[in-house]
């Protein structure tokens, strides 16, 4: 109880409240603009948060992360264009409802489902906290090394059909992390005698290049295809209430999002896929899915919005980010010398609890903002794409240059921006590079610190938690290989029949 009261005291500070409002309202607006998305906004704002206290900076970033998906459903439903990539599934049922004259109902369903998913995941986090606080200290160097390795394996296998590309990009990220002066023996690694490479490749510069600069280049080289701002007539309230009459689908979607969010490297797409497939399979009207099914919309939005709070679990408990946005947030912790991991639950439980409260409040604020401001918010949909690109490029400069006032950083970010354009054009994943950089650093450090206690290969897994993680790695790999074999067999059977 004392911890909870301490956390409330933290949250009630004006800086935290201001960050909460700015993050949640800003996140909704950013999410509603197709082509921006939370990753771009967080990448740009990241260096600005380094000057803030960790709780203020993280609240701002979490606000954007958690509420962008609320706003992202607006263009998905009204103009068939996902506001964020994660809202793509929302177009399947949202846009047909708009065409059928049910736009306010679809928006209400989406807002209500996002709120349900977000709150469900926060409650799950709070319930899980005592368990996490008990389990987290069982993670020593070996366990964290193996958990990071599991994250790497999951990142690769989660990109089905692109596992090889994801693996190559993950390894590229791992390589980038090794560039520079090596801290134990003070030797140079791949610096090519260039002074600026001695400090290594900065994660934030790479993040800004791959997310913000590349998005600016993509928009600038594209076309302006905006139409007039759509109009909606009627209240969205009815749709919000309807979500609570579809509790089975909402709970299943939220559960899927929470579980998938906790597992590093999996994320929103898999959770939505599972949630939508379950909702369709268990529906009394499966024929409506893809043509304007309220259940489909609820399944999609609950699943994606329950991921952000759940993704904080591996970050806070183990210091292992599960996806790119939490990887960016990890740097906020590091800048302030607050090291997420087992020790955080022991020594800063009030901080952790304050973050949970902020996560819950931001869902409330985002819903309240949308209920009163959806109609004026539709104006952002008419901002021309290339003009947005110009704004993002201008903002990217602030993010990159303010880090170290280095023009070289800007050149590196521009190079990664070009790489990001190519990856986006080819539909190849960007996230493995970021996770490779972050998880690679964790793995190398934990590998070294584990060595004094390692007598044989078996020593790596001779403790219960390490053994469980090792078994999980084996199971994930076995399932992936089995899936590949099944796909190959299906294809070869098909070609024989053909």
């Amino acid at each position, binding site marked *: 109880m004392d911890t909870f009261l301490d956390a409330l005291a933290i949250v009630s500070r004006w800086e935290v409240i201001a960050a909460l409002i700015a993050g949640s309202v800003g996140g909704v607006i950013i999410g509603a603009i197709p082509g921006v998305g939370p990753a771009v906004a967080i990448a740009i704002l990241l260096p*600005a948060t380094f*000057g803030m206290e960790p709780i203020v900076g993280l609240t701002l970033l979490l606000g954007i992360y958690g509420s962008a998906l609320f706003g992202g459903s607006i263009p998905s439903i009204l103009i068939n264009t996902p506001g964020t990539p994660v809202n793509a*599934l929302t177009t399947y049922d949202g846009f047909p409802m708009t065409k059928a004259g049910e736009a306010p109902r679809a928006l209400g369903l989406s807002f209500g489902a996002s709120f349900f998913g977000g709150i469900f995941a926060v409650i799950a986090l709070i319930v899980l906290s005592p368990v996490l606080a008990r389990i987290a200290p069982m993670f020593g160097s070996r366990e964290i090394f193996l958990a990071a390795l599991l994250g790497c394996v999951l990142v690769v296998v989660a990109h*089905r*059909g*692109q596992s*090889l*590309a994801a*693996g*190559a990009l*993950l390894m*590229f990220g*791992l*390589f980038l*992390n*090794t560039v520079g002066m090596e801290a*134990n*023996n003070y*030797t140079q*690694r*791949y610096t*090519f005698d260039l002074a600026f490479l001695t400090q290594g490749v900065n994660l934030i510069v790479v993040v800004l290049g791959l997310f913000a600069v590349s998005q*600016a*280049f*993509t928009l600038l*080289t594209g076309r302006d295809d905006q139409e007039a701002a759509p109009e909606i007539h009627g209240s969205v309230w009815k749709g919000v209430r309807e979500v609570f009459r579809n509790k089975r689908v909402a709970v299943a979607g939220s559960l899927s999002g929470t579980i998938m969010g906790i597992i590093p490297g999996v994320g929103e797409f*898999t959770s*939505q*896929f599972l949630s*939508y497939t379950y909702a*369709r399979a268990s529906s009394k009207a499966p*024929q409506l*899915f893809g043509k304007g099914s309220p259940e489909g919309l609820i399944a999609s939005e609950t699943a994606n919005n329950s991921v952000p709070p759940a993704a904080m679990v591996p970050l806070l408990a183990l210091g292992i980010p599960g996806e790119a946005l939490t990887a960016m947030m990890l740097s906020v912790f590091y800048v302030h010398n607050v090291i997420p991991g087992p020790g955080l639950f022991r020594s800063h439980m009030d901080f952790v609890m304050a973050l949970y409260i902020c996560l819950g409040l931001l869902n409330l604020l985002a819903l309240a903002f949308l209920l009163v401001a959806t109609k004026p918010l539709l104006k952002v949909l008419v901002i*021309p794409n290339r*003009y947005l690109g*110009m*704004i993002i*490029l*201008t*903002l*990217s*400069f*602030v993010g990159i240059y*303010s880090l170290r*006032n280095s023009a070289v950083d*800007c*050149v590196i970010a*521009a190079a990664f921006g*070009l790489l990001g*354009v190519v990856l986006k*054009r*080819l*539909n*190849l994943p960007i996230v493995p590079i970021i996770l*490779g950089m972050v998880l*690679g650093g964790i793995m*190398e450090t934990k*590998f*070294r610190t584990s*060595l004094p206690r390692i007598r044989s290969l078996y020593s790596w897994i001779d403790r219960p938690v390490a053994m469980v993680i090792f078994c999980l790695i084996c199971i994930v790999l076995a399932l992936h290989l089995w899936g590949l074999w099944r796909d190959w067999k299906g294809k070869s059977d098909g070609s024989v029949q053909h």
Partner: protein
Amino acid sequence: MSDTPPDLSDLTHPPHHRAEVVFAVASFLVAVLLAALWSSQTTWIDGQDWSRQPGLWPLIAVVGMLLFGAGELAACLIRNARNGGGDVRAELGLWLKALEYAAWFLIYVLATPWIGYLPATVIFATLLAVRLGYRGRVLLLSPLVALGIVLVFKAGLSVRIPGGAVYDLFPQGLRNFLVLYL
């Protein structure tokens, strides 16, 4: 409307583009180059256990890039032989088009320490809007957007962007104001 359920495969299996092979070849060649440079760009300390060698993790990364890269290259070649999926030259043209905006960005970066953050941002935003073909109200809005960005980040959030060399030409009081807020 047909009764077929929506195809979710786009979410899990994004569409293939023939130009993937260009990227696969390039990334494989980069991996080969990095592998060839491994012995000269890392140090192997005599007498130290292999697990503590500074070159171990770059080696793991480069070997991983080589293996996955070779697999991806082979998979791309097979996919391209089986299906179509877009014009490679047109796609390469689009990649090159982005270079122009990279040049714009770098000119903006180089100009800022000389002429200052506010003037550089206003000029960059306005000229880029002209280049993009915007006229009238949208063009007039560009310097205001630039001013807003500078005010929010430098004056409001106090991000660290040094003043321009040109600010030194102004009287001390004004110079200090410009350096601090614009």
